[in-house]
């Protein structure tokens, strides 16, 4: 495994742990768990979770696009 792959994996790992924490106690409770402000009509507590799901998509696209599988 090259240095590049190591960094990619490390970053993905950090993201996965952050995402898990963001969606569970205590991070979700402290930062994402309120009704206001409304985002696109959704209460913030729901928009927060939707936001992290979308963020996961973006991170996975980036991880996948930089892997050797897609580079050739």
């Amino acid at each position, binding site marked *: 495994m090259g240095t590049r792959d190591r960094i990619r994996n490390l970053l993905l790992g950090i993201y996965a742990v952050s995402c898990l924490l963001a969606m569970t106690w205590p991070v979700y409770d402290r930062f994402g768990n309120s009704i206001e402000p409304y985002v696109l009509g959704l*209460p913030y*507590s729901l928009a927060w979770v939707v936001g992290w799901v979308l963020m*996961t998509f973006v991170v*996975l696209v980036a991880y996948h696009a930089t892997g050797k*599988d897609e580079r050739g």
Partner: protein
Amino acid sequence: MPSWWIVFGVSLAYLLASLIIGILPGRKASRTAAGFVAGDRTLGLLVMYFITGATIFSAFAFLGGPGWAYSKGAAAFYILAYGSLGLLPFYFFGPRAARLGRQFGFVTQAEMVAERFGMRSIAGVMALVSVLGFVPYLALQMKGAGYVLAAVTRGNIPEWAGAALVYGIVLIYVSRSGVLGVGWTNTFQGMFMMVLAWGLGLYLPYKLYGGVEPMFRLIADSRAEMLVAPGLTATGDPWSWGEYSTAVLISIIGFSVWPHIFMKAFTARDDRTIRRTVVLYPTFQIFLVPLYLIGFSGILFGSAPERADQILPHMLMHMEIPAVLVGLFCAGALAASMSSGDAMAHAAASIAVRDGLVEALGRRYDEVRQRSLIRITVFVLMIASYVLAVTYRGDLVTLLLYAYGPIGQFAPVILVTLYVRRATGRGVLTGLLVGSAVTIFFGLRPDLKPFPLHPGIYGLAVNLMLLVVVSALTQRQVSQRDDDFLEIARSG
């Protein structure tokens, strides 16, 4: 013509379309078990995306998702939360398993584990647990389909007849086309479900409250506790953060090792297809949002259904909505039920034959014979599930939770099979058996749990501990075989 006829006609047209789409690809597959179970390893990205997505979105998501939001509020968000990372392990497990599948001809999860450790009994245990888990799950899907048809036709089609009609069609295309039939119908059903869920999810709040935000503002005024996590339990008490958080965690861990999902690694055309499916999966997950909107729109609806998961049909039947629209909704719910039910019937039968008969009991059948045995087993399992669906009067969801607890315990098994050289078969088997027992025990007696955490967490802790300890005690010479196996997993 009475309006229930229109509703039924629309549903029937939908069922026929599914049948045709499901039957056509059967001609292309080879007449072997690999053709029937793994589609000769030819599935591309579009079908893989919908086969994983639509398989996961079952009648539970389509009726249960709104039901949870309606009765438990923000507790429902946990389903969305675990889906974001849930398929991620598959990005790494999937290609490894696929390489081993191509080399050794595996089409199920358990044959891979049994080959790695040279122990047939593991395949037997995994097969038994999987089949025991699938039958109540399938029965639940059948009940869902029968219930929806009965509700929208105002009882003119009784539940038993609706379930028989819908699953008769599933039986035809699954036994004819195998996984290719499942794949193409799921693609069609998946698209249909998405359009319908978004349509209803935006239409109901708009029609009833003048929009999504006005609806949430009304709920915030009178039932604010519904909009903040961790929401409520089934009895209406506040849910605990420990249970909510560990439910998210255990679901992420267990998600990608569900046999009917994991087996799809063996169907993909190449590694790239598997990885891309995982990358795209969160976009499918967003489809829960309109389902939540439907559920939330029921909170202030006025009248209440008998059971929470009946909220969507309940609202549709009590509003002035054209019969064609109700028919489309019905078709969408049937799509959700069928797209999970077909994959389960197919997976359970494949597992029973390949892992149970061939691997664990050591019967020798050629590939063509295996294929016909799997078809017969699809039939037998569907009849068994149907009988359970129409006769069992207890709470099926509870039965399902007991059955599914042990499947979550497959995660460490798959992990060490694909990555860890020093693990032994006895360690794996001991961990699996005791871990499952612990999960079931705390599922049955939640009052004995030392902390309010998901029962699967206790099972996993014991499972991992025993796996490590027993593996260390039964350590044999690490053989060339283990090295070869892991080398194939790594590079094909």
